[in-house]
Every structure is written in structure tokens, then in C-alpha cells.
């Protein structure tokens, strides 16, 4: 705080505090409070609100842990590709259905984040250190073209591409690679379509921060590492990645959060086996009209994802302070 | 215009750590004043208190007799040259230089003219439209100086600005800085851990250790009559002897060590009871061949001779196995003894100083 005033003076400090306060109070906290309060009360008809049944309860939250269902766990390697040669025994568990969906959402969001990171890192490196900087604006412009088209339309084109009689199957059959068309959204335990859609939709949210971090790395450091005989793996692992950690962390947090809270992509690119937690929230709110439970689930998603991100950052030894050093 | 600076019992604490401990010093207008000390001695903290980035925990900072408490860095008549120069990477050279004028609302033509003029002053014409990243280290150095001068400060604060330069350039810039200071007659406060820099440029030097000033004096006095063991060992080289004073009389005495007893001169505040050591600078050591007629003589074996151009350093071991060194002028007629030979070194009593030993010495040696 004193640091803020020292660096930016009183006027600017108060301005930034004021703007942040407006944002967090008027646009985030206060609006959420109403729903937050509602999430602790049962869903009741209007005339019973305020009546004897209207009391605070954790019931809406506990619903996540009710309704167990026999679920045959899908293990990677089995069922991923039609006619996969690997045989794994079925693993049946009896889990609360919404908890199961919730766990899958977190797992698949993490995988998506990881894949996106691996896709983006070389590109960010290339853009920052290899590409002719004068070509960058063009490259950027072309990269953001997909953003002109709404997420819905983009996901819809992927739906078309990945569907049974879509261009991908047709192309591969014309090339003689496939003998029969394939539903590409059914792979990876029924989540391949969703993952493709999420990766495609959120890849730029990783690329920009990592690229940003990469540009601030002095090329001399890379040369120094090369000079000291570091191979390219060591060079990246010991010099470049540590420098880009803040960008990687901020990109990963963004992508993970976006993926976990995405709704359009999982509903458009679903397979008959897939379900995303946001769809459950949506269902609470708009099919069951139960805003109370919907809000409870939404806050659960918020809290658990925040905890998850914090734990992951601890695990990988990236502090918030790294993001905001 | 130049201003005086006075620190009155200034103390600065960072949490539990005391960076500056009750420092008082007065710097005269137009003076080139250096704070010399190892890293962590508190000299940078002093500079930041003068410039106004931090406020002292206790005590006063006065610039031109005015108490500076509560006055921000942008309101003080100071200009700072940062260790890493802190040139604005996204401004061209001339914009960097005239930034101080720009924020004062000076119009562009005047600013540009002033920038060109200053570039001439620092002997760097023709680079006005480049970016700092397109300049060499020495050129950037000059731009930083020009930028600081542009605001016509009464006080220039320099935070080890030469540390990133190579030796040749550093020596050149020393002279340059000194010349600019004389030309502009601005008070300079210079922070460095390089004694050569401090001695060569400064009117006066304050040697610091552990947040305290050990000695303030002109460079010659600092070198020739150090106030204590810390100053002696931090500034220049010394042969150190551990032992005790056996007799004391009128500023002189006898100092007994395990390689003999020597006739010595007593430093400031030394008495028979004080904890002290004997310091003899390498250049004050002479060779007496095998004769032992001199009053202060130590038999040694030569281990190595390193030739430095105008002088040579002779490294030896005394009979207690301690390393000793001597510096002799390069004289082809009278070459230094060859490695392996046994010889005797001597030194005059008035060049053998017994100085107060404080924990600061241990600190400096550890460094």
C-alpha cells in the first residue's frame, strides 16, 4: 500500500484503488452476494419465500454428493479408438453423479491446459525470438481472425468437421486412410470433440501471455546459455522456461478457468457420453428453474477451481508473486 | 548552482535490519563527495534518502539548509544516475535527455536544442534520434549523465554508474566525470565500492561499514592515515601483523609479533590496552638483501613475482608461513628478487601503522 503511494503518488493510487473497487464491488462482489445468499436457501415457490421452510441450509451444496450412480470408468486406451486392441477390465464405481461430472470437468480442463501450453510454447518462442519482427503484425492479425467469428459458430464448424459424414472423415476416406467414416467427437472416452473445441477456442489465451513474457527475455541470456554449452532442452528448461514462468502461469490459469467454465463448446461438441459441469449448472438454472442450486453449484465450481489452481501453483512452485513480480 | 547536503544523525531501519546507523556528515557546495564501502554497507540507502525515494527512520536530511522531510523525489533539486542507468528504453536519446524539461513544460524546439547542446557537452553528437538499446555502454553512460545534467540539478547523485563499463572506459569516464563536475560546479555525491574510483575523483571520501561512517577525509589522508583497521584494509593493500604493543611513547611504540618486534607509529586513539594490529602497505616494503641491519626487518622466501608494467608485486612467505607482499618500481637496473630466493624485507617505523582493530575489520576481511 505504501509502496503503491510511493510509486504512483496519492492521486494515481486512489484512482487505481477506486477503479478496482468499482470493479470488484459494483460489478463482482455485491452482485454475487445476492445469489450467494440464495445458494444457502432451499428452492421454494414464491409464496413460501420468507415462510417457515425458508431457512439457511447446506442442502444445495450437499446435492453434489448425493445421487450415487454406478459408473463404468472410461480408462484411456480402452474405447478411445473403435476396435482398440488394448483390453482393460471395466472399472465400475458408485459415485455421486454430479461429483463425477465435476471431477471429469477438472481433469479434462487440466489436460486441455497442458496441451494448449505445449502447442503454444514453441510458437511463442518462435514469434519472440525467431520470426522477423516486421512480420509479426501480419501473423498476429491472421491469428486473431477466428475471433471475428463467435465461439458458437466456431464450435459449430468443428461439429461439422468432426461429425460422421463431415469433411474430415470424407477426406480420410478419399485418401484411402479410413475405410469407414468415424465420429471424431467420440474419442478419448467421449471427450475428444470437447477437447478439440476448447483447445481451438482458448489457445490464444495461452499464446499471448507466454509470448509477452518471452519478449522480455534478453536474447543475450539465451546466447549465454548456448555459449556455456547448454543443449536446446537444457537451454529451454533452465533459462527460457523459468523466465517465462509468470506468463505460463497466467496463461495456464486463464485457459484452465475458461475451459472449466465453458458452456457452448461442451454442449455443441458433446458425445453421447460427455457431460460438463457448467451444463449441470445450466440445467439447474434453466430446466429446473432452481437458481438456488444453480448458484450453489456455480460457487462450488468457483471455489474448487480456485483451490485447485492454487494447489497446482504450489506444486509447480509458481507463486502468485511470480505472476505479479 | 550547487547545494550543500547535510545528514544529521540519520538512521534507516528496514524492519529489524539497520541499514544506516546514526550517520552525520556535511557535504559542501560544489564538492565531489564519495561514499566508499563494501556492498551492504548502507551507502545506497544514504543516496536514496537524499534523493527522496525513502524517508529516514530517524534524523534529518538537509539540502541547501532545507529539511527535506516530506518532499518527494520529484520536488528535490537532485538528479540521480542509476547503477543500471535506467534510461527509458522506449524513448530516443534526445527524448531521454530532455525528459526532465518535457515534464516541466518546455517546448519541443528548446528541448531539442538543449539535448543537442548536452550531447555535445558529453561528447556524443549525432545520436539524438537513436534508441538507448542502439548505443554502446559508454555512450549510454554519457546519455545518462546528460539526462541528469539537463534538469540543472544542484546536486548530482551517482550510484556506482561506472560499474558496468570495461576498465579502459571506466578510467576514461572517471576523468570525464571529474571534468564535468568541475565544469558545472554541481555538488556530486558518488557511491562506489571501488576505492580507486573514489580516491581518483573525489574531493573528500567517506568510508562506510555496517551502516556507519568510519572515516571522512580527503583521499590522501584516507590512504595515508587511515582511521582504523577497516579503512586501512578496505582502501588499498596491506601487510597485516597480529601481535601486541609492548611499549608506547609519544605516538610511537614497539609492536611484538611472532616474526619479531617492530618499531611502529601509533594510529588514531591507539593505546597500550586497545585491540589493534600492525599495517604496512606493500609499496613501503623494501628489500635489504641478507643483511638484517634495519630496525624493522623480516626474513622471507620469495614465492612469486608478478609484473604489472610500471611496478611489480613480489609475493613472499615469512617464517611463520604468512604471506607478505611488496610492491617495487619497475627498474631494469635493480630487478626484484627471483622466486625461490631467501631475502629480508624492511620497512620504516613511520610507515608502520598500528591501528585500532574493530569487528569491522573482520567484516571487511570476510568480504
Amino acid at each position: 500500500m505504501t509502496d503503491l503511494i510511493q510509486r504512483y503518488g496519492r492521486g494515481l493510487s486512489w484512482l487505481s484503488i477506486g477503479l478496482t473497487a468499482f470493479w470488484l464491488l459494483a460489478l463482482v462482489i455485491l452482485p454475487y452476494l445476492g445469489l450467494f445468499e440464495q445458494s444457502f436457501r432451499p428452492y421454494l415457490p414464491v409464496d413460501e419465500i420468507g415462510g417457515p421452510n425458508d431457512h439457511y441450509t447446506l442442502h444445495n451444496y450437499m446435492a453434489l454428493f448425493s445421487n450415487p450412480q454406478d459408473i463404468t470408468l472410461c480408462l484411456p486406451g480402452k474405447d478411445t479408438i473403435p476396435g482398440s486392441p488394448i483390453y482393460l477390465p471395466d472399472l465400475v464405481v458408485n459415485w455421486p453423479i454430479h461429483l463425477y461430472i465435476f471431477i471429469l470437468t477438472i481433469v479434462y480442463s487440466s489436460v486441455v491446459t497442458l496441451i494448449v501450453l505445449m502447442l503454444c510454447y514453441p510458437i511463442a518462442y518462435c514469434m519472440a525470438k525467431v520470426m522477423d519482427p516486421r512480420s509479426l503484425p501480419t501473423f498476429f492479425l491472421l491469428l486473431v481472425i477466428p475471433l471475428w467469428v463467435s465461439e458458437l459458430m466456431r464450435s459449430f464448424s468443428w461439429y461439422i468437421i468432426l461429425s460422421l459424414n463431415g469433411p474430415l472423415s470424407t477426406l480420410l476416406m478419399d485418401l484411402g486412410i479410413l475405410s469407414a467414416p468415424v465420429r471424431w467427437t467420440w474419442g478419448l472416452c467421449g471427450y475428444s470433440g470437447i477437447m478439440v473445441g476448447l483447445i481451438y477456442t482458448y489457445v490464444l489465451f495461452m499464446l499471448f501471455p507466454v509470448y509477452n513474457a518471452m519478449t522480455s527475455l534478453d536474447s543475450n541470456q539465451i546466447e549465454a546459455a548456448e555459449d556455456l554449452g547448454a543443449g536446446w532442452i537444457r537451454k529451454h528448461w533452465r533459462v527460457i522456461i523459468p523466465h517465462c514462468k509468470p506468463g505460463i502461469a497466467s496463461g495456464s490459469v486463464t485457459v484452465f478457468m475458461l475451459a472449466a467454465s465453458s458452456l457452448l463448446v461442451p454442449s455443441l461438441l458433446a458425445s453421447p457420453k460427455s457431460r460438463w459441469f457448467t451444463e449441470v449448472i445450466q440445467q439447474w438454472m434453466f430446466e429446473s428453474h432452481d437458481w438456488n442450486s444453480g448458484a450453489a453449484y456455480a460457487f462450488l465450481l468457483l471455489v474448487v477451481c480456485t483451490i485447485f489452481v492454487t494447489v497446482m501453483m504450489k506444486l509447480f512452485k509458481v507463486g502468485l508473486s511470480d505472476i505479479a513480480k | 548552482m550547487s547545494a550543500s547536503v547535510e545528514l544529521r544523525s540519520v538512521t534507516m531501519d528496514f524492519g529489524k535490519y539497520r541499514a544506516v546507523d546514526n550517520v552525520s556528515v556535511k557535504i559542501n557546495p560544489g564538492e565531489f563527495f564519495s561514499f566508499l564501502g563494501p556492498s551492504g554497507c548502507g551507502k545506497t540507502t544514504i543516496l536514496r534518502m537524499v534523493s527522496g525515494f525513502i524517508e529516514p527512520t530517524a534524523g534529518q536530511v538537509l539540502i541547501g539548509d532545507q529539511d527535506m522531510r516530506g518532499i518527494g523525489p520529484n520536488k528535490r533539486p537532485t538528479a540521480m544516475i542509476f547503477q543500471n542507468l535506467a534510461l527509458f528504453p522506449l524513448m530516443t536519446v534526445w527524448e531521454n535527455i530532455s525528459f526532465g524539461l518535457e515534464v516541466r513544460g518546455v517546448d519541443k524546439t528548446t528541448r531539442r536544442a538543449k539535448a543537442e547542446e548536452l550531447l555535445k557537452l558529453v561528447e556524443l553528437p549525432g545520436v539524438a534520434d537513436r534508441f538507448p538499446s542502439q548505443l554502446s555502454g559508454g555512450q549510454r553512460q554519457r546519455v545518462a549523465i546528460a539526462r541528469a545534467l539537463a534538469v540543472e540539478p544542484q546536486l548530482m547523485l551517482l550510484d556506482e554508474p561506472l560499474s558496468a563499463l570495461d576498465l579502459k572506459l571506466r578510467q576514461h569516464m572517471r576523468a570525464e566525470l571529474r571534468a564535468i563536475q568541475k565544469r558545472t560546479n554541481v555538488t556530486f555525491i558518488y557511491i562506489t565500492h571501488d576505492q580507486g574510483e573514489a580516491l581518483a575523483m573525489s574531493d573528500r571520501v567517506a568510508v562506510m561499514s555496517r551502516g556507519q561512517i568510519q572515516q571522512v577525509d580527503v583521499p590522501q589522508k584516507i590512504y595515508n592515515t587511515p582511521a582504523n583497521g577497516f579503512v586501512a584494509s578496505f582502501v588499498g593493500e596491506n601487510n597485516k601483523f597480529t601481535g601486541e604493543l609492548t611499549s608506547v611513547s609519544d605516538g610511537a611504540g614497539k609492536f611484538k609479533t611472532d616474526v619479531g618486534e617492530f618499531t611502529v607509529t601509533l594510529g588514531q586513539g591507539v593505546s597500550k590496552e586497545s585491540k589493534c594490529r600492525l599495517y604496512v602497505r606493500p609499496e613501503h616494503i623494501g628489500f635489504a638483501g641478507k643483511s638484517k641491519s634495519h630496525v624493522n626487518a623480516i626474513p622471507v622466501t620469495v614465492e612469486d613475482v608478478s609484473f604489472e608494467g610500471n611496478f611489480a608485486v613480489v609475493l613472499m612467505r615469512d617464517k611463520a608461513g604468512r604471506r607478505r607482499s611488496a610492491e617495487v618500481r619497475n627498474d631494469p637496473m635493480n630487478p626484484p628478487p627471483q622466486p625461490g630466493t631467501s631475502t629480508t624485507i624492511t620497512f620504516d617505523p613511520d610507515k608502520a601503522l598500528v591501528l585500532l582493530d574493530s569487528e569491522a575489520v573482520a567484516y571487511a576481511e570476510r568480504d
Partner: protein
Amino acid sequence: MRNKFRHSALLIYCYCFLALMLVPLAVMGGAAFNDSKFPTVLPWKGWTWRWFVDLYNDDTIWQASFNTLIVAIAVVVMSVPIGTAGALLVNSLKGRSRTLLYALMISPVLTPGAVIGISTLLFWFKFNVPAGLHLSVFAQVSFIAAYVMLMVLARLQSFDSALEEAALDLGATHWQSLRRVLLPHLYPALAAGSVLAFFQSIENFNATQFTRGASTTLTVYVGSKVRTGITPTINALAFILISITVIGALAYEIRRRRIAARAAEAEA
């Protein structure tokens, strides 16, 4: 030499990535000319311009596009200063308070759009602010500012605060130092943040849906078409936008190359 080979491989990878990013757009663009009511390229039912004609005649789409643009601009104008202020604030805090503030700031990113929309609507309703695009702006800013904050924060950490001190020391006010020293350093992040904010706003569906009142934005319009079936009119609009961007990018690149060639000639 090995470096050179690796660099070429990297460049090829980049261009492949770019190409892959554009594949779905090709499918979408192709559907704009397919004489099928369903926006797909397969089966191909013949070339047609009718979707462009439909687009031209669709007043709702034009009104929705205009609304979308207004909202997007308002969102950029609000979320960039807010996100930047938030980043500066977080950056200057330490320990617990930083973690708490940071968590609060990114919480809207994770909150489902419907929740944001509904809570925004209900909250402003208490102050008699009716639903409308202004509430959509508020709802969108609440989470888009977080993206901006993240980008600015990442950029801030590479900033040498000695530059600010240097500016202050030279007599600049805090405001001048911000404007001339810090902001220029943040430009890339601010530019990227603005672009991101703009596009995020354009495609926001859920939060807008609940706050928009009687006005319609493009994505909401497209979303509402899903129930009855999207027609390639939307693809026609997308095709036009994409074409303009591609042509713009190409024109820029050609012009740049020509200027570069001329400069090289002049030097030789």
C-alpha cells in the same frame, strides 16, 4: 547450422498452426456458398449467393451487429483502465492481501456466464436500473477486466521500477511518469488486452443474454437461431468479416515488403 535448421522447423510449425487455426473458418466460409439451409460444406448442393442476399435483407442482423460493436467498444474503454488499475494494485501488494485480491479478481472468469448475467441484472434492478445493453457492458466488464489484468500483470513484472524512479527524480509528476514511462512499457499488453477484450465482448453469449433487455447482439441473435436451426446467413456475415481481415493483413504485408525492398535498394 543446427540452429538454422531448428528455426526453419519452428517457422514451419508456426505456419501449420496458423493454417490449422483457419481450417474451421474455411469450412464456415464454404458453407456460406452452399445452397443448403444447413450451414455445412458436405453435402455440396451447389453454388449460391442467396445467403448474402438474405444477410443484406436481414435488418435484425445489422441492428445486432451495430449493438455488438457499441457494446464491444464500451467494454474495451472500461475494462482496459480497470484491468490496468487492478494489475497495478495487485502488483504493489504483498502476501495474503495480494492473494485475496488476485483471487477476487479472477473469480468472474470462472463464474458461469449465466450467473454473472443474472446477478448483474438482479443487483442493478435494486437501483431501478432497467435491463439493457448498458448492463451487458457491466456484466462483460466484470470478467473481461480480469483478462486485461492478467495480461498487464504479466507485462508489469518485466518492468524495471528504476525507470519510474528516474522519471520522478528528473522532476516528473507521478502522472507524467505513468504516462511517459510505465504506459509505453505496457503498450503491448494494453494492445493485446484491448484486442482480447474486444473479441471477448463480441462473442459473449450468456452474460449478455440475461442483461440485454430488449436489444439484441450478434451472438445472442445467432444463439437464438440455434433452436430453430442456423442458416448460412451467419456464415455469410462471418465470411465477409474474415475476408476483410485477411485482405487487410495481406495488404499490410505487401506494403511492408515493398517499403522494406525500397529501403534495401536505397541502402545498396
